[in-house]
């Protein structure tokens, strides 16, 4: 040991005993940044007391002195006020001065070095609190305020400042820690950790709220760029969103973001709050992506293309399998799900894992942990997709069958009973709002129902979901009177037009049913009932957990069966079917191939027995044809060759289309013979038929009696069709009319052509024809509308032998109108035409409607309103209403402009 060293040591001992030597400048202990009153906490204030009270405790004095030395050295400089926040601040970095180390030793282990010092304090705790004070008073005020700055700049400035003060704080701390390493009872890493924790707690609590908004903006912008999402302001890009691949820009932004997060972590801003914020942003962006990428994309045009592309189908499948989360593995993935999962795996998860690594400050290997989380994220994203699709479901169903991909999405996602319940709840509500109100026509509801049956079947073979949503719909359909009729006319309609193209579903009939019925033909062979016993079915699944007690499985969608089920029982359906088919059979001639076919299909469905009467009806009609021929031949009712020749010569084949020559010279009669018991209740109004017809009927009866001895013919005058040729002075009119209409016009027949036009009153006609007045009036109205009769005074009609120019124009217009819309008279069982008594009331309704609701309305809407608003219902068809409105137009009370009716002012 050299002499100098010895001296030095002695001096130090002296100093310890007698205080600081004069050679060392005695600075005030007050650090510059703290007001003296708060100086360094407890020990120093006690120090003055102690010195006054007793000098005995030298240890204490020594300790106090060391304390002062150390605290002076550790003092933190003020933030220079002249510095612009943008400039970086370079505070002086100190190294331990002379005496510091010794003094520090005292403070760190007072028990061994100064055992009798009573007031000691932890220097590290003191330093920590100093740092806290310094931070609050000096740093916090200068952190840039957000209001007038651009978000990223605020953030970067904040980070710079925080980094600087961090450096400063750590510099001072390291001065302590240098010595700590030599101590046994303290470990510097632990102190470091604690200090960091304390400092970060302060920073993250005080700073995070200040920069939260800008941090969020920056994070969101960066993350959405990295994930390939357009920003919220960019509406145009949002509307035509195409997921983009990663580019150099995204890589750059990603690096930037990671660097930023790293600095945030270093300065202590990457705490819990940051993590929550990040999680929220990631969640928002996932929702955003699902919304942008999948909303309204219900079909899968690329699936086809991809299959034809370079990749072989097998490899595509393999890739899909691996990309999906395990829970969704069983379903065939749609384009949306596939893209979503790819996106999650390649971009979303990648980013999150990288951020996590930065946050933890460690290199996490792609071990099991993240993989499980990636699975989880995929599930979450599919959940988002499911809720989107659930909200869209009603529109998806309207688009069916062009929306099968969307249904696939949904099927992938609805794996839990909760989601299924959510789906049905949301859908039932939408259904109520959008369909089950008087504004929707029954046809529309039925079409939607058909789509629903098929879509829900695609969604869930078990029918459980459908049953849950369909019940209110079924109730509602039962309250509509025309449901059954629409279903049956749908079944009987042509699914293909004349060129054998499928008829679109926009028409007025439910043609979907006809095509479905045709398709069903093949499937009905194998009975679906045996399904439960089919042990070889590889796709067998147990009954769904949320199935009700009455649950019965069925494999095919069975649209028609379900629809008929709506009506409560098949009886209602069959009865209505009988009525409608009766109408068809009576009104038309021909082979009735369609009716036969529908009947056969229905028989396959319901069995023979319930449809027996329909069978008999059909047979009646077919037999009638044969019997008719036989009777006419026997009774010589057919025209002779001579008559046919004259008839052919007298009329131009180009004009009277559909007129058979036999009726030209004298009345001719064909009959359909019905087995009364098997037909629905038919019109039995009776009246006096024209004499010539009466004679024909008599001969026909005789012929029938000779053919079938035990049976007797009863004529139903009011049914049937007549072809009437009227020869008026200036024109000839040929009309296909009802028999009773023909009878009324026959009453106007005049044998002497020179006479003045025949005049008849309603009263006369009723008596002469023994016909009901309503029927007479209806027929008169009909002929008046055809411009054959005219009402010259109240209830008195006469024949319009000649037409003036104006009338002629109207007549022509009517001819074109009637060819455009062939009236389809469906009222076989109910009254025919709108009767005058009821007419007055309906007219009031229509007037009220056009006066108040809307000044002009199309026919459909008027009909719908009438049906809805009249408590007893409006029993007439649209065609009858059209006819009625036509009269009102002719009478000058209504106008018909652009497809809409309006009141004439």
């Amino acid at each position, binding site marked *: 040991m050299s002499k100098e060293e010895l001296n030095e040591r002695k001096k130090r001992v002296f100093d310890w005993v007698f205080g600081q030597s004069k050679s060392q400048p005695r600075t005030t202990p007050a650090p510059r940044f703290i007001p003296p009153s708060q100086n360094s906490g407890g020990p120093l204030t006690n120090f003055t007391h102690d010195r006054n009270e007793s000098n005995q405790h030298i240890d204490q004095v020594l300790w106090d002195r060391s304390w002062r030395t150390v605290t002076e050295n550790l003092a933190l400089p003020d933030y220079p006020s002249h510095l612009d926040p943008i400039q970086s601040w370079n505070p002086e970095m100190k190294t331990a001065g002379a005496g510091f180390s010794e003094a520090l030793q005292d403070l760190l282990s007072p028990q061994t070095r100064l055992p009798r010092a009573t007031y000691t304090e932890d220097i590290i705790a003191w330093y920590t609190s100093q740092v806290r004070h310094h931070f609050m008073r000096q740093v916090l005020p200068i952190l840039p305020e957000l209001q007038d700055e651009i978000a990223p700049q605020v953030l970067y400035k904040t980070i710079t400042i925080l980094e600087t003060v961090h450096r400063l704080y750590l510099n001072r701390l390291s001065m302590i820690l240098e010595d700590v390493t030599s101590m046994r009872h303290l470990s510097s890493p632990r102190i470091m950790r604690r200090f960091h924790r304390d400092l970060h707690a302060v920073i993250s609590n005080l700073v995070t709220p200040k920069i939260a908004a800008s941090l969020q903006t920056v994070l969101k912008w960066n993350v959405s760029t990295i994930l390939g999402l357009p920003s919220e302001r960019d509406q145009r890009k949002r509307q035509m969103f195409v997921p983009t691949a990663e580019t150099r820009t995204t890589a750059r932004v990603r690096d930037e973001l990671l660097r930023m997060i790293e600095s945030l972590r270093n300065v202590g801003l990457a705490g819990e709050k940051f993590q929550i914020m990040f999680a929220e942003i990631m969640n928002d962006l996932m929702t955003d992506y699902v919304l942008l990428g999948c909303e309204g994309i219900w079909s899968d045009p690329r699936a086809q293309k991809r299959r034809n592309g370079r990749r072989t189908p097998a490899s595509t499948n393999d890739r899909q399998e691996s990309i999906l989360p395990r829970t969704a593995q069983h379903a065939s993935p749609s384009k949306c799900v596939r893209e979503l999962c790819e996106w999650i795996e390649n971009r979303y998860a990648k980013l999150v894992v990288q951020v996590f690594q930065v946050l933890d400050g460690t290199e996490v290997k792609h071990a099991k942990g993240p993989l499980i989380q990636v699975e989880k994220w995929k599930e979450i994203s599919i959940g988002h997709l499911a809720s989107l699709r659930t909200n869209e479901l009603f529109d998806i169903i309207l688009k069916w069958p062009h929306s099968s991909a969307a249904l696939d999405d949904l099927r992938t996602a609805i794996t839990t009973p909760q989601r299924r319940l959510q789906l049905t709840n949301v859908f039932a509500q939408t259904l109520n709002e959008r369909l089950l*109100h008087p504004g929707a026509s029954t046809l529309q509801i039925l079409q939607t129902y058909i789509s629903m049956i098929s879509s829900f079947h695609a969604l869930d073979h078990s029918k459980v979901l459908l049953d849950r949503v369909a019940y*209110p719909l079924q109730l509602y359909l039962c309250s509509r009177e025309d449901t059954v009729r629409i279903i049956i006319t749908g079944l009987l309609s042509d699914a293909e037009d004349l060129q054998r193209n499928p008829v679109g579903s926009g028409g007025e009939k439910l043609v979907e049913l006809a095509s479905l019925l045709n398709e069903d033909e093949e499937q009905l062979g194998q009975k679906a009932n045996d399904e439960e016993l089919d042990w070889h079915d590889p796709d067998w699944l147990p009954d769904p957990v949320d199935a009700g007690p009455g649950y019965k499985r069925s494999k095919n969608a069975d649209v028609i069966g379900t629809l008929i089920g709506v009506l409560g029982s098949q009886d209602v359906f069959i009865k209505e079917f009988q009525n409608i088919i009766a109408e068809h059979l009576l009104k038309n001639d021909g082979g009735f191939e369609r009716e036969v076919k529908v009947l056969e299909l229905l028989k396959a469905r319901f069995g023979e027995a319930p449809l027996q009467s329909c069978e008999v009806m059909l047979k009646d009609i077919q037999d009638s044809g044969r019997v008719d021929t036989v009777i006419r031949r026997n009774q010589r009712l057919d025209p002779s060759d001579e008559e046919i020749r004259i008839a052919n010569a007298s009329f131009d084949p180009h004009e009277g289309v559909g007129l058979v020559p036999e009726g030209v010279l004298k009345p001719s009669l064909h009959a359909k013979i019905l087995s009364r018991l098997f037909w629905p209740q038919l019109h039995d109004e009776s009246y006096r038929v024209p004499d010539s017809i009466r004679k024909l009927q008599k001969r026909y009866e005789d012929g029938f009696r000779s053919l079938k001895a035990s049976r007797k013919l009863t004529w139903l005058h009011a049914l049937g069709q007549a072809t009437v040729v009227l020869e008026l002075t200036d024109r000839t009119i040929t009309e296909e009319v009802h028999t009773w209409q023909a009878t009324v016009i026959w009453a106007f027949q005049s044998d002497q052509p020179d006479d003045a036009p025949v005049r008849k009153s309603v009263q006369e006609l009723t008596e002469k024809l023994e016909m009901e007045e309503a029927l007479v009036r209806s027929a008169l109205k009909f002929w008046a509308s055809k411009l054959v009769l005219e009402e010259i005074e109240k209830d008195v009609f006469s024949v319009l032998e000649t037409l003036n120019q104006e009338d002629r124009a109207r007549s022509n217009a009517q001819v074109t109108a009637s060819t455009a819309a062939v009236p389809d008279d469906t009222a076989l069982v109910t009254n025919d035409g709108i009767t005058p008594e009821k007419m007055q009331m309906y007219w009031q309704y229509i007037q*009220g409607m056009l*006066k108040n609701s809307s000044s002009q309305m199309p026919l459909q809407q008027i009909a*719908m309103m009438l049906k*809805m608003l*009249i408590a007893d219902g409006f029993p007439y068809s649209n065609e009858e209403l059209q006819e009625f409105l036509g009269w009102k137009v002719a009478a000058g009370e209504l106008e018909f402009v652009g497809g809409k009716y309006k009141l004439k002012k």
Partner: protein
Amino acid sequence: MEDTQNSAPGTLPPAQAAKLGAPRRAADAQSTTKRLQTELMQLMTSSAPGISAFPSADGNLLSWTATIEGPDDTPYAGLTFKLSFAFPSNYPYAPPTVLFKTPIYHPNVDFSGRICLDILKDKWTAAYNTQTVLLSLQSLLGEPNNASPLNGEAAELWDKDPAEFKRKVLGRHRDVDEE
């Protein structure tokens, strides 16, 4: 066992029916609908001159449009006024909300068409109906209640200066165009 489980088509298990809650709500709505249908039928069959009303074109039975023709011998003679009726779902136990759609200058009607009429407020009973309301409004046109005016100027002019009142009525009246 099998048979009891497979209930007939169209009849759902009662538990499920109750869960959907449709029948109960339907019953409430049904009575209001029935009442309004009956009122409409009454209006259509026994129409009083100068008034008419009908549900709106969208088929919502709870919202009607009505027309009143101004009575002769009043400043409103020859004018027609459109009104809107909005029936509450508990009708007839609460009055409909009635507004003038056609601008009208009248002591008891304000400029946005709101009407001050006791039977539409606290004096309403279920015995009133659309027709009685319309008739009351029609008579209100001829005999305004100047004691509680919504339009003070009109109330004043009605008594003081009938000619000016008529001029204002004609000035304010405009045929509302629908569609």
